[in-house]
């Protein structure tokens, strides 16, 4: 896969660290399975690495990671350009809830499902547009703008569903989250996330949009002085983020065949920002790494799935998760890299 940053070689790409994190988590789980007395062994029933086929579709912990990580990955992809322009979008969780609420309510009201999906995506983009316009043309701090939508958006979602979980039965809507296409028997969220990654990388790296976005984040004044349309770009970044959030919301909704305006996307903004930052994009703006954000999202999900697999209670699970996060970041940190670099130079 092409490294998104263009000129960086693979080992210098920040995406390496979350990927290594995922790999070591999987290995750690396998090790536990193998070594714990009474454990299932490497591939026994219930083992982390075990893949079973059900209706011609693989299932297992690894598949679960791909499945549940998909929505976070899409959020993170949307968040990356926003962060690259020195912004942040706290409203993604609420937009998720809102998009799900809109789609489910429309379908329940007998609107064709394809129209419902399109409307939900449009609502997400519109939310992004509001954020983007207020940030870039209104000049209000991104944190404040998106906090507003974060608070209000969930309220609107509740108004849309009449403050209940709207349950529906619709093959197309369900397919977005639960589908396992015959031609590629993998979870639909993962397929969608990968497709989004591909599309985003193409759109940002095969054009100069990525360079301009990074330029705006790296030095807004300089970017303005070479004639980059900073305001438009910034607004567009939020629109894209809103769109991604809506897609993630549809996945979350499809996954439980119901739109939950209360809980859908709760804390999603933290997860997404985390994935982006672990993936090597600085919150100070500038350089971004889409692949890193993508991998960061699956790292987060791998952590969650590990907690379930190891039967660690939700009250204390955050502790090992926090330590794992720190470990991944420390290993990838500049001082450690410099140390390793020096070591490597010395040995040959």
């Amino acid at each position, binding site marked *: 896969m092409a490294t998104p940053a263009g000129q960086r070689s693979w080992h210098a790409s920040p995406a390496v660290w979350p990927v290594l994190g995922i790999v070591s988590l999987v290995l750690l789980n396998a090790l536990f399975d193998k070594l714990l007395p009474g*454990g*299932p062994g490497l591939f*026994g*029933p*219930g*083992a982390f690495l075990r893949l079973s086929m*059900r209706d011609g579709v693989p*299932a*297992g*912990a690894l598949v*679960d990671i791909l499945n*549940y990580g998909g929505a976070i990955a899409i959020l993170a992809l949307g968040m990356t350009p926003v962060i690259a322009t020195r912004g942040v979008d706290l409203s993604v969780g609420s937009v998720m809830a809102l998009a799900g609420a809109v789609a489910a309510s429309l379908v329940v009201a007998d609107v064709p499902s394809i129209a419902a999906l399109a409307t939900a995506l449009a609502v997400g983009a519109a939310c992004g547009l509001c954020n983007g316009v207020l940030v870039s043309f209104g000049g209000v701090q991104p944190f404040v703008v998106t906090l507003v939508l974060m608070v209000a958006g969930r309220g609107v979602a*509740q108004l849309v569903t009449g*403050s*209940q*979980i709207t*349950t529906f039965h619709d093959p197309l809507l369900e397919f977005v989250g639960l589908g396992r296409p015959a031609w590629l028997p993998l979870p639909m969220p993962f397929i969608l996330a990968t497709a989004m990654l591909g599309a985003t990388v193409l759109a940002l790296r095969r054009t100069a949009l990525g360079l301009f976005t990074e330029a705006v984040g790296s030095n807004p004044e300089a970017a303005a002085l070479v004639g980059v349309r900073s305001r438009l770009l910034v607004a567009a970044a939020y629109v894209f983020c809103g769109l991604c959030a809506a897609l993630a919301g549809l996945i*979350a909704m499809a*996954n*439980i*065949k*119901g739109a*939950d305006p*209360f*809980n*859908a996307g*709760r804390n999603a903004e933290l997860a997404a920002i985390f994935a982006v930052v672990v993936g090597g994009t600085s919150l100070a703006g500038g350089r971004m790494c889409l692949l890193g954000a993508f991998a960061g999202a699956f790292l987060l999900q791998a952590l969650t*799935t590990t907690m*379930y*697999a190891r*039967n660690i*209670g*939700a*009250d204390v699970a955050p502790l090992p998760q926090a330590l794992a996060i720190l470990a991944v970041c420390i290993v990838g940190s500049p001082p450690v890299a410099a140390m390793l670099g020096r070591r490597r130079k010395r040995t040959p």
Partner: protein
Amino acid sequence: SKQPGGDAPPANKRLVVGFSQIGAESGWRTANTKSIKDEAEKRGVDLRFSDAQGDQENQVRALRSFIQQQVDVIAVAPKTEEGWQEVLEEAQRAGIPVILTDRLVRVDDDSLYVTFIGSDFVEEGRRAGQWLADQTGGTAVIAELQGTPGAAPTIDRKKGFEEIVARHPGMTIVKSQSGNFERSKGKEVCEAFMRSPEGPQITALYAHNDDMALGAIQAIAAAGRRPGEDVLVVSIDGVRDAFQAMLDGTLNCTVECNPLLGPQLFDTIEAVRRGERVPKRILTTEGVYDRSQVTAETLASRQY
């Protein structure tokens, strides 16, 4: 100033009630809110409603603002049991009677509130456990989906259920993990249950609320087992979707936790205003619904 619930209200003045709700974290909660608001409207009560958006601090602040607004009666659905001493003392000093709904509070002196209307979470847990014990003859391999860690319903529903399990040597809880009261988490966690080494042996699933059970049902089906048949599913709340699931045969039992407290609450408030003595504990009327009892008519009659 006013006496706590003492003097009869002047005929021309509308009764002013302040009600502090926890938030809107589920359909159950919204039904609860709606019932109270509707009843207030029906009786012509001036209801000052405050939604705390899930934050107990906002509830405390709301109570203080009710005291400032000099409402006649305060009702509160406390988020947790602790942390109410100071503000209830203030209400007492201001001569405003306080009625608790839904959950109890722990204070030094129970004269700080007039009464508590609501269900008993421990009892709900017991009922769920009892149903399961009766149904299986006391043998079951159980997976438990807990609510939000540390929350009162989680703690009590677990406690009540475990009491019953302890009485039946044939019943064991092999898996217990929090699903945060959310449908999606319920599903994700139950998938992990099903996949685990113990997964194939699980014969029953106990969820602390209906939403998680509804998510779990999907996970059980996805794991190739029949929810309601291979794995018995019992949960608490009794929301409409749960009745639908029972009608579909995927949920076995729900222990009702009635959110429609409005009429009872305002009956009590009026009694307090009339100066009548009310019992310290008013239990809500709640049933245990087995799927065999559920028909399309029951479903249609459910209000939430």
